[in-house]
C-alpha cells in the first residue's frame, strides 16, 4: 500500500501552507488535490488581498497561489498528487483516492484535512433553472477558463463573495444590473462595495428574489422588498430580466470524510454549520487527524494560511519533527491569527470560536 507520513488533503491556502510548514520541519508530506492544479479558491481571485505582509496583503489571490504552488512543487519533502480526489476513510488510518479512474488506498501517520467549503443553495420556485449558478462556479468559469456566464447577471448576496464576484463580472465585461441582499446592511468590506457602486451597480438591501422564470433556462427573476422581520412587503414585487443569477449566500464546510472518520462535530452557525471540534493547535478529537482552513470554519484565505501553518507544525511535532522550534513558531502564528481576527470584521469568527470552545476541551 502507498504510505504517506503526513497526508494533506486539499491544496487551497490552508493545505499548501500545512504541507510547506510540515515539510520545512523535516516531515515527509503527500499533498492530494482533486483539481488538475493547486491553489484552491485562490486561483480564481483576481483582487488584491487585505491583511498583513505575512499573508501576502496587496497581492492578487492567483499570484499568491502561483508562489505557494511553486514552493510546494519544488520542496523535496512534498510529494504532490494532482487530479486525485479523496473518497473515503477506512480503519487503521487509510484513505482511498481516485486517481486516473483507479482507486488508490493510502495509509498515513497523520492527516491534515484542508478540503475547504461548498456553496449554499437557496430555495425559491424554479431555483434549479439553468442559469442560476453558485457565485464561486461563475468565478471558476470566468477567471479560470475564460468563459462568460451570460450577458446580464444579477447577484444574490452582498457579502464579500457576492460583491467581489460582481466586480470580477464587470472586469470581464458583463453587465450587473443588481446586487440583492436580504439583510438591511451590506456584509462585504466597504472598500469593495463602494467600488462596485461607483461602477454603477446598485446594491438593494432588505430585498430578495422570490421566484425565477424561463422556459429552458433563466430569463427573469422577481424581486421583492422585505420588512423588519424579513417578510415580503405586499405590492413591491418587480421583474428583472437577467440570463444568470449568482447565488452568494454563504458556504458550508466540506467535512464528510471527517464525519466518516468519527471526528466529533459541533453545530456552530457562525462558523458555517457543522464543524469538527478541535484543539487550539487544530487537532480533531481523533488522534493524528488535523484540520485547517474553511473546513474548520468559514473564514478567509489569510486565516486559512495561518491555520495551515499551525496544523502542519503540530502534525510534524507529534511525529517527532522540529521539537526545538515548535513553541516559538506556534506563538508567532497565534499572534498573526489574533491580529487577523481583531476588530468588528472578526466578530463573527470570534463568537463562533468561543461557542465551539464551550462544547468542551478537545485534547490539551
Amino acid at each position: 500500500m502507498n504510505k504517506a507520513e503526513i497526508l494533506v488533503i486539499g491544496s487551497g491556502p490552508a493545505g499548501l501552507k500545512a504541507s510547506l510548514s510540515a515539510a520545512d520541519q523535516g516531515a515527509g508530506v503527500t499533498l492530494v488535490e482533486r483539481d488538475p492544479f493547486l491553489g484552491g479558491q485562490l486561483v480564481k481571485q483576481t483582487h488584491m488581498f487585505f491583511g498583513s505582509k505575512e499573508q501576502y496583503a496587496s497581492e492578487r489571490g492567483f499570484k499568491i497561489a502561483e508562489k505557494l504552488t511553486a514552493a510546494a512543487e519544488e520542496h523535496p519533502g512534498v510529494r504532490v498528487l494532482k487530479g486525485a480526489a479523496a473518497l473515503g476513510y477506512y480503519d487503521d488510518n487509510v484513505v482511498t483516492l481516485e486517481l486516473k479512474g483507479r482507486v488508490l488506498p493510502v495509509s498515513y501517520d497523520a492527516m491534515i484535512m484542508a478540503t475547504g467549503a461548498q456553496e449554499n443553495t437557496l430555495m425559491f420556485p424554479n431555483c434549479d433553472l439553468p442559469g442560476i449558478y453558485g457565485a464561486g462556479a461563475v468565478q471558476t468559469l470566468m477567471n479560470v477558463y475564460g468563459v462568460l456566464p451570460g450577458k446580464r447577471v444579477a447577484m444574490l448576496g452582498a457579502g464579500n463573495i457576492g460583491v467581489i464576484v460582481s466586480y470580477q463580472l464587470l472586469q470581464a465585461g458583463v453587465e450587473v444590473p443588481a446586487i440583492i441582499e436580504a439583510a438591511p446592511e451590506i456584509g462585504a468590506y466597504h472598500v469593495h462595495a463602494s467600488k462596485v457602486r461607483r461602477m454603477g451597480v446598485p446594491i438593494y438591501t432588505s430585498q430578495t428574489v422570490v421566484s425565477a422564470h424561463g422556459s429552458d433556462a433563466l430569463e427573469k427573476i422577481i424581486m421583492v422588498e422585505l420588512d423588519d422581520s424579513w417578510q415580503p412587503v405586499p405590492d413591491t414585487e418587480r421583474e428583472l430580466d437577467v440570463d444568470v443569477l449568482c447565488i452568494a449566500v454563504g458556504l458550508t464546510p466540506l467535512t464528510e470524510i471527517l464525519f466518516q472518520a468519527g471526528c466529533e462535530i459541533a453545530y456552530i452557525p457562525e462558523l458555517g454549520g457543522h464543524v469538527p471540534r478541535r484543539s487550539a493547535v487544530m487537532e480533531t478529537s481523533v488522534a493524528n487527524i488535523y484540520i485547517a482552513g474553511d473546513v474548520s470554519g468559514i473564514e478567509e484565505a489569510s486565516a486559512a494560511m495561518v491555520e495551515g501553518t499551525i496544523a502542519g507544525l503540530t502534525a510534524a511535532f507529534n511525529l517527532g519533527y522540529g521539537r526545538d522550534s515548535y513553541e516559538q513558531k506556534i506563538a508567532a502564528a497565534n499572534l498573526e491569527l489574533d491580529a487577523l481576527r481583531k476588530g468588528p470584521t472578526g466578530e463573527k469568527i470570534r463568537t463562533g470560536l468561543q461557542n465551539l470552545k464551550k462544547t468542551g476541551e478537545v485534547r490539551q
Partner: protein
Amino acid sequence: MRIQVHPILEFKKGKKISFTYDGITVEGYEGEPIAAALHAAGVRVLSHSRNFKRPRGFWCAIGNCSSCNMRVNGIPNVRTCVEPLQDGMTVETQQGRGVIGGVPGE
C-alpha cells in the same frame, strides 16, 4: 461566449479541437472542462432531474453536486464541469440514471 480581453488575466488555452454534443459538432479547447466548452457554445441545459425531468445546468463547477452529469464516450454520470475535454469526444444528454458496465440503473 468567451472573454477576449481581460484587464488582469491571460488565459492559456489548449489546442482547438472538436467534439460532438448530441450528434452536433462543437469546438472547444483541449483540457478545459467539457461544461465550459458547452457553455461557451451556448449550451446551458446539461441534464434533467430524475422525477420531473426539469432542465438542469451546472451549479458548483467544482465536481461537488452532480448537476452537470452527462454521458461521455458512452460512460454515464460523468461530471462534465471537471472532466477535461479531449479531441473527438462524444458528449450526450443522459436519459435516466444511465447504464454502467451493462447493468441498467433503472
